[in-house]
Structures are given as structure tokens and as C-alpha cells.
């Protein structure tokens, strides 16, 4: 380095070497600390494991709702305790809000679900647009503790509140030619911010065969853990078909249509080789990119074996007798 000698700086103004070194040390210490702080901040901002204040039962804004009868036949077996409210409410696939499972709860926090209507139409004798509060009175609410298996190979046990979809079907009286039921999620990019992206074609659509829809296990869920559904879990009303992969469980439903032909559904149309219309949980049929033989139960260290029809085979397998489930997955 070239060091210019300058005569016009008096000796008294030249920084003392010790002082200079101290200052240098101090500056370096500050740089180190500052950069570590910045890196830590960056990591925390870009890589959130969830809300800084995870939504828990205590700070859940939704009030308690009266718990109905608990039907014993619908409990998951002993040794499979339900997941905590914190787990269920902070790990969600709900692409309308975010594609990050940890971010959905935060981004859905202010989602307002009143007023809300569900339009039931199509091949029915009595089409009707239900106000959500009337819909909730259609049948007594029950608690159903179901296994929940995501197509991504993780699972939970969830104590849903709701009533069998069958009650709604009976109320609108489908015509003889109705063979399928189609469910549509709200489309409102102002309230569901990720709908401004084209990650998936909106609105989200799912469907069931009419006999699947009428099955006693099939639930219109309106709550969990004895409370209204948190927005991230599909408030105010969602579908639960516990023997199918989670993506069949369409959330925040605004429209239910009875149709003659098999409806196009979001994931099955998006990647037909990866996601089927039936989407029955089946350890024998792997997702083309990953195995479905095992699953990680949230909160557990090792993987569990995935059960055919998610453990509900004795109740639902007969719906599919004669079908090749390897091809109609």
C-alpha cells in the first residue's frame, strides 16, 4: 500500500497506534455482531417454522361451540392419541393462503367467515342457498375423532366437530340421475391472498361419488376440539372423508353441486398421473415421486405403516368392490 507522507498534519493529530488498533478491534467486533444479527434475522424471516406466537386453544379467536354426542364407533383405536390443537392449527395445506404449511395459519388469521352462504344446486329437488348458521342447524353436531392422512405422507388424528354430509343430501333430495357431488371453495383473492398467484387453477374443486358422499363416515366439518374451525383448517365448513387423502377434504365451501358425470377436480386435473379422483389411501399405490407405504404421524419420531383406506377398510372397502384400485387410484 502506498502511504503518502503529509507534512501538514501535526504530530498531535495523528491517531495513537494503540487507539487506532482499539478502534479497529471495536469496529470489527461491531461488524461481526451486526452481521450475525442480520444473518439471524434473514434466516428467521425466510425460514419460519410457524407463527412466532403459534395459534393455541387459548388465543383462538373462535368461541367454543356446544359439543354434541360423541359416537363411539367413530373413534380411532387406543394408542393413537389425537394431535394437539397447536399441531392441527399450525400445519396446514391450504394453497389459497400459502404453499408453506407453516405460513397458512398466519396468513389466514384475519379471514372472516360471517356472513357466509353455501349454495346447493344441480340435480336436486330442492335447491337451496343456506346461510352458514342455518346449515349448522341441519343436524346435531357430533365429535368424530378421525385419522387424517395427507398425500404427502404425513398424518394426524383430529377430533372434528360436524355432521354427516348425508343430512344435507337428504335435505335437498337429489334427483335419480345425480351420480356425483361437486364441492367448490370460495374464490376471493382479496380474502385468500395466494389466489392472486397461479399455483393452482382457482377455485379449488373436489368431488365424490354420490354413494361416497352418503357414506356415514363422510362429514361436513364445522369445528375441531369443540370449537369453530380455525380459518386455516377450512372455516366455516369443509369436507372430511377420512379414508381418502387430505386433498379431497375441500375447505371453505361455498357451493355444492349435484351432477351426472364425474366432475373435474383440482389436483386430479393438475397432475392426473399423480393424483386420482378417488384418492383412497392406499399403501400399495405409490405416488410416482414418493412412497405411500409409510407415513409420519405428526409428533412422532418414527414412521407408521399406512393402512389401506387409512384404517377404515371394514367400513368403506365395499364401495369399491370390482374396481381395480391400482388404476382407479
Amino acid at each position, binding site marked *: 500500500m502506498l502511504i503518502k507522507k503529509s507534512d501538514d498534519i501535526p504530530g498531535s493529530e495523528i491517531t495513537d497506534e494503540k487507539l487506532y488498533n482499539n478502534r479497529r478491534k471495536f469496529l470489527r467486533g461491531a461488524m461481526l455482531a451486526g452481521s450475525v444479527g442480520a444473518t439471524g434475522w434473514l434466516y428467521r424471516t425466510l*425460514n419460519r417454522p410457524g407463527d412466532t406466537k403459534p395459534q393455541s386453544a387459548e388465543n383462538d379467536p373462535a368461541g367454543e361451540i356446544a359439543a354434541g354426542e360423541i359416537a363411539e364407533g367413530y373413534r380411532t383405536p387406543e394408542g393413537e392419541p389425537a394431535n394437539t390443537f397447536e399441531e392441527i392449527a399450525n400445519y396446514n395445506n391450504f394453497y389459497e393462503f400459502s404453499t408453506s404449511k407453516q405460513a397458512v395459519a398466519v396468513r389466514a388469521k384475519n379471514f372472516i367467515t360471517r356472513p357466509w352462504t353455501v349454495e346447493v344446486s344441480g340435480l336436486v329437488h330442492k335447491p337451496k342457498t343456506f346461510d352458514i348458521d342455518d346449515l349448522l342447524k341441519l343436524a346435531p353436531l357430533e365429535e368424530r375423532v378421525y385419522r387424517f392422512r395427507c398425500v404427502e405422507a404425513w398424518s394426524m388424528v383430529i377430533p372434528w366437530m360436524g355432521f354427516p354430509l348425508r343430512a344435507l343430501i337428504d335435505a335437498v333430495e337429489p334427483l335419480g340421475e345425480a351420480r356425483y357431488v361437486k364441492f367448490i371453495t370460495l374464490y376471493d383473492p382479496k380474502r385468500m391472498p395466494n389466489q392472486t398467484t397461479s399455483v393452482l387453477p382457482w377455485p379449488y374443486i373436489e368431488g365424490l361419488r354420490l354413494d361416497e358422499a352418503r357414506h356415514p363416515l363422510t362429514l361436513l366439518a364445522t369445528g375441531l376440539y369443540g370449537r369453530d374451525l380455525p380459518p386455516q383448517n377450512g372455516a366455516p365448513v369443509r369436507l372430511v372423508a377420512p379414508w381418502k387423502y387430505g386433498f379431497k377434504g375441500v375447505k371453505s365451501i361455498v357451493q355444492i353441486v349435484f351432477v351426472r358425470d364425474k366432475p373435474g377436480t383440482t389436483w386430479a386435473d393438475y397432475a392426473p398421473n399423480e393424483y386420482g379422483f378417488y384418492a383412497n389411501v392406499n399403501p400399495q399405490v405409490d405416488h410416482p*415421486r414418493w412412497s405411500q407405504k409409510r407415513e409420519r404421524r405428526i409428533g412422532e419420531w418414527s414412521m407408521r405403516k399406512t393402512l389401506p383406506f387409512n384404517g377404515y377398510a371394514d367400513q368403506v372397502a365395499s364401495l369399491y368392490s370390482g374396481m381395480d384400485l391400482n388404476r382407479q387410484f
Partner: protein
Amino acid sequence: MDVEDVKFARLLVFVNAAVPFALLLWDWRHAELGANPLEFVTHTTGMLALIFLTLSLAVTPLRKAAGQPWLIRLRRMIGLYAFFYAALHLLAYVWFDKTFSLGAIIDDTARRPYITLGMFAFFLLVPLAVTSTNRMVKLLGGARWNRLHRAVYIAAIAGVAHYYLLVKADTRKPVAFAIVIGALLVYRLLNKYFPSRTERRPARAS
């Protein structure tokens, strides 16, 4: 930049690159890794491996563009951090997903392209990490060492493809990595076939 400054710059990189690891351990200890901590660790370490791989590829273009030759002295450490996070990522998979079952790992590797690519990328990085010491550079000779370490380009491409194949629908992040890494590789191609005047000097030792 004097020797002391470079030393300090390396200390800065060393400490900062360890910050995500430290926070990951901290969050683990305090059970703050979300509802699926095992998946969170796997995804985070994989992401960090890709980030450091990308940073290591950015060193050369950056040092030339900015005219800061000393930056090269940070590259080894950045590359080794990429390897460190990739090794943690592999460990997470082998431990949490496969519980160290060799049969299941081999089966998975053979059957699933994204696992095949991930394994391939990792095992390409192993010889690079092993030959990263000064002694190994001398032993191999600069030219051979350089040729060997070009394998990092392939590892980076395989790493991004591995990420791309695993996401369900939202491909924005893997595509962003592909664009950045693609640009850094194109820069090298352009440099090779259309070298700038300053670099066409006969002795190109570096």
C-alpha cells in the same frame, strides 16, 4: 485488503455461515421447529446446501466483476459449508425418513428420480470436500484440481433438479435457484468462449 483484513473476512463468513445451524439447534432444543420438526430440519438443511452451493459459484463472477481478487480466499469455506449442510440434509433423510435402513435407502434411490439426483449430487461433492485442503491442491496440481472441481457445476444442476422434482405445485423457489445457478454457469461458458481482453493473457494462472 491486507492479510489481516482477509483473515477477518474469513472469520465473518465462518461465523455467519454457522448462524443457521446454531439457530436450528437452538430451535430444536426449545421445540420451536413447528408441527413437523423432522421435515423442517430436512427442508432447511437442503435449502442451506443449495444456498451455499450457489454462493460458492458466485465467488468467481463476483470477484472479477468487482475487481476484488481476494474474494477467492473465501470460496473454500463457502464450498465446505455447502457440503456440511448437504451432509446434514442427507443425515436427516437417512435418519428421520429411513431410520438407517440401508435396504429402504437403496430401494428409494433406485426408484425415485429425485432421491437418485440428490444422492448423485451429494456423492459428487464428497471428493471435492476431500480435496479441498492446500496439500491436496498441491498433490493434484492446479490444473487437475481445477478440472476435478468443475464437478461442482454438475452437482449444482443435480441439486436444483432434485428440489424441483419434489415440490407439488409451487415451483417458484426451485425455478429461482435454477435461474441464478444457470446464470452463473452461463457466465462461465461465455468467459470460456469469449474471454475478455484482460483475461486472454497467455499466463492464466489462478
